[in-house]
């Protein structure tokens, strides 16, 4: 199935989505890598105020190349980064912030799958390396936070996107994890092969 979703997205809509579906999103996306995940969780636990409401946006594992032109930030390239690095943070992140859509590449593990089932979120894969395609559907850099503290790739870039995708759903709210299933099947096939 293919879905076009507007952010923020309701829990009931997220529950319709299954692994293998493709979604395109319109609305606000925030980039966050390892350091931003860590900082958001720490600030939340200390009771500090956060610069945005993560439940209303999609979180994108991406360290973009951004440049300032005539006082405005412009995205040069914004492909996804490997999501497995965020595996150690994602459960705690989803639990605290109720982010409904996570975007990255390469798939995520058992803890994130667990969080997606428990707190009703999905993990989706954007095409690895497709930097120009990504940049094409980013309409505007709305804001940036934690730029000084974390630097360009790790900062929270608030992006306005239109029909951002294709995003293939690899973890749904029912506990399925497509990339793990694919890998397990591949291991079985490989075991049977005799050279």
């Amino acid at each position, binding site marked *: 199935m293919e879905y076009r979703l507007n952010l923020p997205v309701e829990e009931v809509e997220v529950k319709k989505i299954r692994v*293998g*579906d*493709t979604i395109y999103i319109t609305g606000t996306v925030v980039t966050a890598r390892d350091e931003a995940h860590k900082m958001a969780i720490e600030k939340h636990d200390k009771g500090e105020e956060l610069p945005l409401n993560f439940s209303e946006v999609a979180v994108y594992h991406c360290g*973009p*190349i951004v440049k300032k032109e005539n006082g405005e930030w412009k995205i*040069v*390239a*914004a*492909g996804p980064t*490997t999501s*497995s690095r965020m595996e150690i943070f994602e459960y705690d992140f989803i639990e605290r912030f109720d982010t409904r859509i996570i975007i990255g*590449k*390469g*798939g995520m593990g058992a803890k994130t799958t667990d969080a997606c089932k428990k707190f009703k979120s999905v993990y989706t*894969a954007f*095409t*690895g*390396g*497709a*930097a*120009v*395609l990504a*940049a*094409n559907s980013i309409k505007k850099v709305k804001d940036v936070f934690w730029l000084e503290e974390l630097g360009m790739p790790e900062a929270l870039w608030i992006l306005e996107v239109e029909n951002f*995708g*294709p995003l*293939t759903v*690899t973890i749904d709210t029912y506990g399925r994890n*497509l*990339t793990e*299933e*694919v*890998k397990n*099947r*591949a*291991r079985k*096939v*490989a075991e049977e*092969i005799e*050279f």
Partner: protein
Amino acid sequence: MNWLIDAISDLVAQAVIDLPKDVEDALKKAMENEEEPAKTQLKAVLKNIELARIHKKPMCQDTGTPTFYVKLGSDFPYKDLVEEAIIEGVRRATEKVPLRPNAVDVLTGKNSGDNTGRYIPFINWEIVEGSDCIITAMPKGGGSENMSTLKMLKPGVGLKGVKKFVLEWMVEAGGNPCPPTTVGIGIGGGADIAMKLAKKALLRKIGERHKEKKIAKMEEELLSAINSTGIGAMGLGGKTTILDVHIDIAHRHPASLPVAIAVQCWANRRKSIKIDKEGRVWNID
């Protein structure tokens, strides 16, 4: 000297912007044969390749480690300029295209900012007869490079053991190297020789078999075995996990059986130019 720097800078720009036709054709074929959701992912890859050409932007944000293969004619009149021109050409392309700065000092963690540094750009030299110089740029992405590996096998496991190792490795790599990938394999020599052969084998065109029949057969066997595992584009399941396997071999030490695997992402980038003794520059396929 400036003309040579410009030629190198243009070569690097072309390499990161314009995917070779044989690779694009192989991706197209994969897309046509594929089912969802891999089909959508491959369509996105193809669309991205097209947009990169139209907007003259790098097809991937990771513009790679600048790696070069030079066939230097022993009578090429500008041979003393080539190394410096490659370094300067990379600097120029980094600013002009622009490229992502990808050269980090191992000791300090500092990014040089211009894609140059100790041994970077890395140049593989080969001295050949004649007065021409052929320079190939291969920008090598980090995500797929992280899935490259080397194993010193026990010679007793034989070629069967080699094939099993490659197959199992590519399954575990899964979606990480941005499949459909191209796999270069070096067998024999020593550890360094095997890895050099593996990476150099990536310069071959998709579908181009090794001229030695036994090696060609092994390439075909591995191609079909790896694709039968169904890892698919981006590890989401599908028929095409890899576009091709290119193997090269060297005689080995009786006690060693080194096997090196160099993995290249779908953005299998490589571009070559030929420069003659008059300083004329041609793009070559």
